[in-house]
């Protein structure tokens, strides 16, 4: 399907801060698309440019083939769900939902049936007479959704709509939003800093940092093959190992030389030269851990180490394992915790291993991205990449 909402070379500056720089993005019709990034990455500015609240300094915005860059918000077939919901406090739930149609001067009877239909959709027919300050957070959120959807926008913009809710409610609303998206079938542009929200809802995600797009792709694509160290570190958790290309075995695999470690096999889809500096990223849950040396199979990396830290998290446990100059984070799902005769403990010697396909190589690395990783407790007092 062709692009529906398109940003072409959009830039926006606020004073000395370049909020968005030269971003191009194509969102397909009916897609649930997320802009994901830390606060200040420019994702909300992108949304406000789409809504018409901010005029871009450069670049154009197209909706369904039409250039909407200069149009004021009221002339765009786009509606927003604000982080604060921005429900009108002096109006009842019914009047809030009816606002868009009332402004459009639609017949009273039509407004009534449409609002009733929306109240049904958000299951709040019995709350129609209440004022916003009499509603709970989740109810406000649902009213905000209904108020936006009643205008049948081409695109629904959602600005961190779940951020103000507590965890349990957030998970519930997450599913509701997904259902609503399936039911109404319009394009959703969803802004969030929460990777779990973005991963669970989106058809595609654009990861943003510093006003630029780092990577666009389906959730699995972004998680399994991040293109930059930022994406690797921001989405989920990972270990970074710094080294050089030793040699390439065939079209698919190569060996890496990493200081203090034996040669590491890694899946390769790039054109690499021996001797070229490279960064290996391997996610904690892809690494296996055991007391005994496992039986060796091909295309796997086996490393001996010492457990420096153990964090029990219920459904799984995190281990920090000293291997050469590195502290490698390993995540292990529990099977039968109390039946395990030899649980891994602090200071135990152990083996870790992973399949060559599970690591991925990055040719660029920003030191700052290390700060996004889960850091072991301070008491250990060692840098992550201690040399």
């Amino acid at each position, binding site marked *: 399907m062709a692009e529906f909402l398109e940003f072409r070379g959009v830039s926006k500056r606020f004073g000395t801060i370049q909020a968005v720089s030269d971003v191009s993005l194509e969102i397909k019709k009916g897609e649930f698309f997320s802009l994901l990034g830390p606060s200040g990455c420019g994702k909300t500015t992108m949304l406000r440019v789409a809504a018409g*609240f901010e005029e871009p300094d450069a670049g154009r915005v197209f909706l369904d083939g039409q250039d909407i860059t200069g149009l004021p918000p*009221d002339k765009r077939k786009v509606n927003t769900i*604000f982080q*604060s919901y*921005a429900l*009108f*406090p*002096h109006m009842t739930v019914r009047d809030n939902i009816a*606002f868009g149609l009332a402004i459009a001067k639609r017949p009273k009877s039509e407004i009534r049936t449409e609002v009733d239909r929306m109240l049904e959709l958000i299951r709040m027919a019995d709350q129609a007479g209440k004022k916003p300050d009499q509603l709970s957070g989740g109810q406000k959120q649902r009213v905000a959704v209904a108020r936006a959807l009643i205008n049948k926008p081409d695109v629904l913009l959602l600005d961190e709509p779940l951020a103000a809710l507590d965890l349990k409610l957030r998970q519930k609303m997450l599913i509701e939003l997904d259902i609503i998206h399936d039911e109404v079938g319009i394009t959703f542009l969803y802004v969030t800093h929460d990777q779990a929200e973005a991963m669970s809802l989106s058809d595609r995600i654009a990861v943003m940092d510093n006003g630029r797009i780092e990577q666009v792709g389906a959730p699995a694509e972004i998680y399994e093959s991040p293109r930059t160290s930022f994406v690797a570190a921001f989405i989920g958790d990972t270990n970074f190992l710094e080294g050089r290309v030793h040699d390439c075995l065939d079209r698919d695999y190569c060996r890496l030389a990493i200081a203090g470690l034996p040669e590491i096999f890694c899946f390769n889809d790039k054109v690499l030269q021996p001797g070229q500096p490279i960064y290996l990223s391997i996610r904690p849950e892809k690494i296996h851990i055991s007391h005994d040396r496992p039986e060796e199979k091909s295309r796997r990396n086996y490393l001996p180490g010492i457990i420096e830290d153990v964090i029990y998290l219920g459904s799984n446990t995190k281990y920090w394992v000293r291997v050469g100059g590195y502290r490698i984070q390993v995540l292990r799902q529990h099977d039968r915790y109390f039946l395990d005769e030899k649980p891994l403990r602090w200071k135990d010697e152990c083996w870790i291993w992973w399949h060559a396909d599970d690591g991925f190589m990055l040719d660029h690395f920003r030191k700052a991205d290390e700060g996004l990783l889960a850091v072991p407790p301070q008491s250990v007092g060692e840098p992550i990449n201690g040399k």
Partner: protein
Amino acid sequence: MRRRQTEWLVSLPTLAWLTLFVVIPTLLVFVIAFRPANPYGGIGRGWTLDTIRALATPNYLLIAWRTLWISLLTTAICLLLALPAGYTIARAPERWRNRLLLCVIIPFWTSFLVRVFAWRSLLHPEGPVKKALEAIGLVGPEATLLYHPAAVVLVMVYTFLPFTILPIYAAAEKFDFRLVEAARDLGARPFQSFRKIFLPGIRRGVVTAVLVVFIPALGSYIIPDLVGGPSGEMIGNKIAQRVFSDRNLPHASALSAVLVLAVLAPLVAVLVLQRKGKKSDIIMGEAP
């Protein structure tokens, strides 16, 4: 019920003060209106309705009508000017806000009386405003700017404008402007979102502003006296004349009583309206 008792104790001094210096004098004014005058400028014995009857003259009706329309017009103009001003100040960047507010307050550094006299000089037939308007051909050489109801309205607007801007600014400053964005997002044009979302959002500031202008305007005395002339006289001037020239206290009291009732009317109206809207509303209170 202990809380109740403490509340009474705490408000007792204020209550006593108000009773002593507001309620009792006001009641005295009402009482004196029904007493005859005596030739020495005092209050005679006995009771009479003559003074009240004497108020029903065409002259007083004219003055009352003028007082009302000048006050209403002043309030309306003040609101029209203060709404955009308050909105602009509230939306201005933080560092500009205080400077703009300072500009609103600066006139208070000069005595009110001095400022009204300054207007007299400005509007004087030989004054700069008159000369300037004449030069650009807006008024003829015979036109009078001073001693005209329009001059009263002008100076009253000038005097009361800061009192209108401040409560509107206070309400606008607390207003969540994301609501205006939401309205625009839902299809409202700029003026529609101003009227349907911003105005209701700051309605208590507007009510305060109206009361703060309209009530003192009804009782204006100095401004119409200095710039109004005979054709710009208001009820306040008549009260002063009855006291100082005629030395007829009952007559002045009767006029004052009418004024008090006229002031009470909008207050009570607002109270009733707000009771209807919400039980806990207070006139002067801003939105929480």
